[in-house]
C-alpha cells in the first residue's frame, strides 16, 4: 500500500460518511437532527460565547483529578497485591465483585457522601480509573521474570532499591498499558458523570443542550469534541509509552 | 571450480529423473529505496528421490531460496520448475516443514496429521492418520494438543502431517534448529528412517555442517550474500553412516575448508 493511500482511503470514508449524513438529514426532512453544517455553526457559537474552552477545561480538570487520585492509590496497591500472593488471594475477590459495578451505580452513594458537585464527579472518575489500573499493575508485577529479582538481590540491593530499580522498571510496560486503558475509561466516565452530577463540562453540554431547547446541533458537536479530545488524550499517553520503551528497553 | 562441479553433477544425474530445476534464480529485496541482492543467478538440478542439503551460515539466503522453491516467494529473476511445470505458488505436492511452531496449536495430534486429508473418505483418512502417527512414533498421543508435547515430538508431528498427504517433495527449513543437540541426533535418524521408507525428494536447509554430511546425498554449499553456489559435494557413503569413519571425516573437513573454518577449537 502506497503512502498516499494511507491518507486517501480514510479521507474517502470520512467524506462518504459526511455525505451520507448530510443527505440523510435532507432526505428525511428531520427538523431536529442536525446536519454537518449546523453542527459546525453550533461549535462556532460555543466558541464565541466563551463556553467551549471553559467546558473543555472543566472536563479535563475532573479527569485529571480523578485519574491522578487513582494513580497514586492504585499503583502502590497493585504493586503490593502483585508481589504478595497472600495479600492478592485475600483482597482480590472483593475487587472482582466491586469492579463490574458501573461507576454510575455509585451516584446515589456518592451524592450522599459528597453532595452534588465536582467532588462527586471526581469520585466517580476515580472509581472508574482505579480498577483497571490496579489490575494492570498487579499483572505487571506478577509477570516480572524471577531472574530479574534474583539478580537484584544478588547485587546486594536493599528491598527499597529492588522495588525502585528492578521491580518498577520491569513492571512499567504493563503499568503504562493500564494507564492508557484507565485514562480512556476515565474520559468515558467524566462525560457520564457530568451528565448527572454537575453543571459544566462537555457531558453537561450534551445533556443540557437537549433538555434546554432540543439543541441537537450542540449535542452532536459535544459528542464530536468528546471523541476528538479523547483521541488526543489517548495519543498523548501512547506517546509516553513509546518514549519509555525506547529508553528502558522492553523485556526480551 | 564451480563449472567442473556442475558438470560432474549433471553426469551423475543423467541416470535419475530430474524432479526440480532451479534456473537462474535471483532475489532482490527492496525497502525504502534501498535494495539488497540476496540470491544471485542460482542454478541447480535435483533428481527424484534425492536428499539434498543446502548449507550455509545464517542470513545467507538459503531460507529465501527454499521459500522460492516452495512457492511462497516470487523470485525477482529466473524461475523454478518442478516436473517441468513452473512453480507459481504453494502446492500440496510439495510440503514445507517449518520448525515445530508450524504445527496448529488448536488441533490435536490427530487433527494436525489429518489436516490436509479433507478430500478422503472417513475410513481411509483414519487409516492414514494412524499409519503416520505410528511412523513418527507418536502412538498414544493422538488426542494430545501440541502444547503438551516436547519440541522433538512437535517436530515429528509436523513431519507426519506433511507426509500424510503423500507429497512428492519435502522442504525442511532448519527443522531441528530449536531442539537440543541430543534430540537433534535422534531426529536425524528418524528422518532418514522415514525417507528410506517413503523415498520422497527432500530439500533440507541447515547451517550445521555435520548435519548436512550425515543426512544428504549431495550438499550444496552456499556463499554469503549475494548467495551463490560455492560448491556441490557428493556424499557417496551409504546409510547408516559412521560419523567416525575416515571417509565421513574427509568429506566433512573438505567442507570446513571450503567455508574457511579452522579444524581446531
Amino acid at each position, binding site marked *: *500500500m502506497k503512502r498516499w493511500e494511507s491518507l486517501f*482511503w*480514510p479521507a*474517502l*470514508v470520512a467524506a462518504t460518511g459526511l455525505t451520507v449524513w448530510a443527505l440523510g438529514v435532507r432526505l428525511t426532512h428531520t427538523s431536529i*437532527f442536525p446536519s454537518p453544517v449546523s453542527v459546525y455553526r453550533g461549535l462556532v457559537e460555543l466558541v464565541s460565547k466563551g463556553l467551549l474552552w471553559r467546558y473543555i477545561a472543566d472536563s479535563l480538570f475532573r479527569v485529571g483529578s480523578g485519574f491522578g487520585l487513582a494513580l497514586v492509590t492504585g499503583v502502590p496497591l497493585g504493586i503490593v497485591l502483585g508481589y504478595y500472593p497472600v495479600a492478592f488471594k*485475600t*483482597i*482480590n*475477590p472483593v475487587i472482582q*465483585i466491586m*469492579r*463490574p*459495578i*458501573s*461507576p*454510575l*451505580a455509585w451516584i*446515589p*452513594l456518592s451524592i*450522599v457522601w459528597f453532595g452534588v458537585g465536582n467532588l462527586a464527579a471526581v469520585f466517580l472518575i476515580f472509581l472508574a480509573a482505579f480498577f483497571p489500573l490496579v489490575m494492570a499493575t498487579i499483572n505487571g508485577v506478577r509477570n516480572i521474570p524471577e531472574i530479574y529479582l534474583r539478580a537484584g538481590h544478588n547485587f546486594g540491593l536493599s528491598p527499597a532499591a529492588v522495588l525502585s530499580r528492578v521491580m518498577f522498571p520491569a513492571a512499567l510496560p504493563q503499568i503504562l498499558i493500564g494507564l492508557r486503558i484507565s485514562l*480512556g475509561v476515565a*474520559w*468515558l*466516565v467524566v*462525560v*457520564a458523570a457530568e*451528565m448527572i452530577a454537575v453543571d459544566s463540562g462537555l*457531558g453537561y453540554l450534551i*445533556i443540557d443542550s*437537549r433538555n434546554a431547547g432540543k439543541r441537537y446541533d450542540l*449535542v452532536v458537536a459535544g*459528542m464530536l469534541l*468528546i*471523541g*476528538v479530545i*479523547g*483521541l488526543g488524550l*489517548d495519543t498523548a499517553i501512547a506517546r509516553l509509552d513509546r518514549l519509555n520503551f525506547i529508553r528502558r528497553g522492553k523485556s526480551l | 571450480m564451480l563449472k567442473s562441479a556442475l558438470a560432474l553433477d549433471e553426469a551423475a544425474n543423467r541416470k535419475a529423473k530430474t524432479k526440480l530445476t532451479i534456473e537462474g534464480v535471483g532475489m532482490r529485496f527492496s525497502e525504502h529505496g534501498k535494495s539488497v541482492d540476496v540470491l544471485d543467478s542460482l542454478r541447480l538440478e535435483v533428481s527424484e528421490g534425492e536428499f539434498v542439503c543446502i548449507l550455509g551460515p545464517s542470513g545467507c539466503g538459503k531460507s529465501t531460496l527454499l521459500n522460492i522453491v516452495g512457492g*511462497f516467494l516470487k523470485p525477482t529473476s529466473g524461475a523454478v520448475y518442478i516436473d517441468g511445470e513452473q512453480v507459481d*505458488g*504453494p502446492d*500440496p505436492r510439495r*510440503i*514445507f516443514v517449518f520448525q515445530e511452531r*508450524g504445527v496448529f*496449536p*488448536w*488441533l490435536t495430534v490427530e487433527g494436525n496429521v489429518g489436516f*490436509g486429508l479433507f478430500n478422503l473418505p472417513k475410513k481411509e483418512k483414519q487409516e492414514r492418520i494412524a499409519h503416520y502417527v505410528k511412523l513418527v*512414533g507418536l502412538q*498414544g498421543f493422538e488426542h494430545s*494438543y*501440541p502444547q503438551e508435547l*516436547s519440541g522433538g*515430538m512437535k517436530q515429528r508431528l509436523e513431519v507426519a502431517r506433511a507426509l500424510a*498427504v503423500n507429497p512428492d517433495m519435502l522442504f525442511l527449513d532448519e527443522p531441528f534448529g530449536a531442539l537440543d543437540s541430543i534430540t537433534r541426533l*535422534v531426529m536425524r*535418524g*528418524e528422518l532418514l528412517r522415514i525417507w528410506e521408507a517413503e523415498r520422497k525428494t527432500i530439500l533440507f536447509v541447515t547451517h550445521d555442517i555435520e548435519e548436512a554430511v550425515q543426512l544428504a546425498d549431495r550438499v550444496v554449499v552456499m556463499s554469503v550474500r549475494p548467495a551463490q553456489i560455492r560448491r556441490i559435494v557428493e556424499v557417496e557413503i551409504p546409510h547408516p553412516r559412521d560419523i567416525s569413519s575416515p571417509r565421513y571425516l574427509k568429506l566433512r573437513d573438505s567442507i570446513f575448508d571450503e567455508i574457511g573454518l579452522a579444524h581446531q577449537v
Partner: protein
Amino acid sequence: MENKDASVVRVEGKHVLGSQRTEASASAIRLRMNAAKYAIAPIAFIALLIMIWQVAADHQAVAILPGPWAVAKGITELALNGLLLKYMVASLFRVTWGFLGAAILAIPFGLFLGWNRRAGAAFGPLIQIFRPISPLAWIPISILWFGVGDLAAFFLIFVASFLPLTLGAMSAVSRIDMVHLNAGRNFGLSKIQLVYRVLYPAVMPQLIVSLRITLGISWLVVVAAEMIAVNSGLGFLIIDARNAGNRYDLIVGAMLMIGLIGLFFDTAMRRLEKLPSVRWGYGRN
C-alpha cells in the same frame, strides 16, 4: 544408529507419559488442599469488611446508609415480591441482545479490517474518533431515535460493544502467525477454507478475551443506561429506590447484585478460555 534411535524414542515416550501421570495426580491433590486453605483468607477478609461495615452503619450520625443486615433484608424483600427476578431478567435480556447483535456485526467487520490493509487504513481514523465517545453520550440521540424503552437500551449497548469488539477482532488478526497461514496454503486450502480452517481457530483465543472484556463493558453500560433511559432493570432499581423513599438498603442491594452478576459473567467467560482448542493462545506454557 537406527536401533538406538528407536529405543531412545520409546524411552522418551514412556518417560513423558509416566512422569505426566504421577505428576498429574500429585498436583491434583496439592491443588485441592491449597484451594481449601486459600479460600479461608478471602472469606475471612470479606467477613471482616462486613463487620466493619455493620459497625460503621450503626454509628452514623444520621442513619442514612444501611448496614449489611439491612441490605440482606432488602434483597430478600425484593426477591420475595418478584421485583429482583424481574429486574435481573430485564437487565440480562438487554445485555444479551445488544451484545450479541454487536458481536455478529462487529467481529466479521473487525476481521475484515484486520485482514485487508486498505480497509483497515480507511476506517481506522473514524474508529479512533468514535471510540472515546462514551456510550452515555449517545443517550440524547438514542432517545431521539428510539424514545424511552428497551430499544434505546439495546441501541446503547450495541454502540458500547461494537467498537471494542471490532478493535479486538482487528488486533486478533494482526497476531496471527504467518506460518499457519502459509501451511494452510501449502496444503491446498482455498481462500474460504483458509478462513475457517486456519484464520478462525487462530483468532479464537484473542476473540474470546475481547468478548469477555466487552461483555464487562456492556454490563456497566446497561446499568448506566437503565438509570437514565428506561423503566426497568437493576439500574432503574437504583434510581427508583432513591426517588421513592431513599431506600438505600435496596440501592446497595442492587449494587451488590450487579457486582455479583458481573463477576459471574467474567468467570464464565474465563472458563471458555480454558478450553483446549483455545488455551494455547494465552501466555507462555
